[in-house]
């Protein structure tokens, strides 16, 4: 058939409306492949059908769309609803409330968690502080025990330092161990000094200028280690400016002890 014969036969229209037998459909599909103009005609006819129907379209009454959607939902297969589930009776109505309740519960749980976590962190910090203090006290205790062990060593001599006039209330014990070359001072009472002053230990030897030794303040300490100077004849303590001096201030000599 020629193109014009096909066009005037109505075959295209019948094909579009699915009114042909299988063999006739195949015949038309052959024509469509053979004649590109017919493919355009076919599209024109289909568009005309659509345009015609749209122009004469009649809006369905309200509710038809919802009926259709409900029917298809019942068929199943809808994987992505395009709007939230309608509020009504049953689980659908409860779902927003349950969701809100769950969200609220999660918020409360999260708040409690972070709150308790904060308390836990604080407790851990307090424990760490306490443990540090305990360790510090333990160290001090160990040091004290060690010092006591040393001053009680049979080789250690306990001497009473003699206060000088003007500092009669001074009360100090001097522990000396020539074998281990260690000295300790046990503070019982010291004169008050200014913030910018310290006590300083001196080694006095014949024919030698006083040798400056340890400085100390005496705060909260009872037995403190001090320098040992071999060959010392007398140890003396003066009050000096903070940091110590190279020569003793003899006006502030508070005590001495001959060793």
């Amino acid at each position, binding site marked *: 058939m020629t193109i014009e014969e096909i066009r005037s036969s109505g075959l295209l229209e019948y094909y579009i409306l*699915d009114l042909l037998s299988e063999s006739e459909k195949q015949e038309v599909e052959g024509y469509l492949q053979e004649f590109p103009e017919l493919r355009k005609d076919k599209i024109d006819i289909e568009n005309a059908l659509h345009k015609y129907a749209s122009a004469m379209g009649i809006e369905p009454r309200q509710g038809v769309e919802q009926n259709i959607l409900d029917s*298809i939902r019942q068929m199943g297969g809808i*994987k992505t609803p395009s709007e939230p589930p309608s509020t009504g009776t049953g689980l659908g109505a409860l779902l927003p409330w349950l969701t809100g309740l769950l969200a609220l519960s999660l918020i409360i749980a999260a708040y409690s968690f972070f709150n308790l976590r904060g308390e836990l962190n604080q407790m851990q910090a307090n424990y760490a502080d306490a443990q540090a203090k305990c360790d510090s006290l333990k160290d001090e205790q160990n040091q004290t025990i060690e010092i006591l062990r040393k001053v009680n060593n049979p080789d250690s001599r306990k001497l009473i330092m003699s206060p000088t006039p003007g500092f009669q209330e001074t009360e100090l014990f001097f522990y000396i161990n020539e074998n281990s070359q260690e000295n300790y001072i046990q503070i019982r009472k010291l004169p008050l000094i200014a913030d910018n002053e310290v006590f300083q230990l001196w080694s006095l030897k014949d024919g030698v200028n006083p040798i400056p030794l340890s400085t100390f303040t005496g705060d909260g300490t009872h037995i403190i280690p001090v320098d040992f100077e071999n060959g010392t004849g007398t140890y003396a303590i003066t009050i000096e400016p903070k940091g110590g001096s190279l020569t003793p201030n003899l006006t502030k000599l508070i005590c001495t002890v001959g060793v």
Partner: protein
Amino acid sequence: MTIDLQIIELIKSGNEQGLRLLYKHYAPALHGVALRQLRNEMYAEEALQNTFMKIWSKIDQYDATKSTLYTWMINILRNSSIDISRTQKFQVEKKTISIDNNVHSSSFTESREFSMDAKSSLEGMEDKYSIVLDYLYLWLFPK
């Protein structure tokens, strides 16, 4: 992406939004055809609903190389309308209303008037198409 392609992809993926778009763009046209074929609001709605359900369940069978989406749907609608028209209930109601008594008079007149209304609303369309449309819509549907 054209609206037809968008609708097809959404329906194939089970997205309800595809149905909503389909309804928005095609329901008036399909409903109008069904109404003219069945001449009854209730049956036309039934045909429309059946058509949408078949579109939803058979979307994988649509072949864009064979026809436009509208053509495919209108054929589904036509078959659905035929099925409805063959039901006993429909046949009984048809007789009650005595449509057959008017087949050679008012229905013909009505169809010619309908045809003229359709022509007037489609200005610029080639005559060969308007004649075809008259034929397709008014004379092919069994009465």
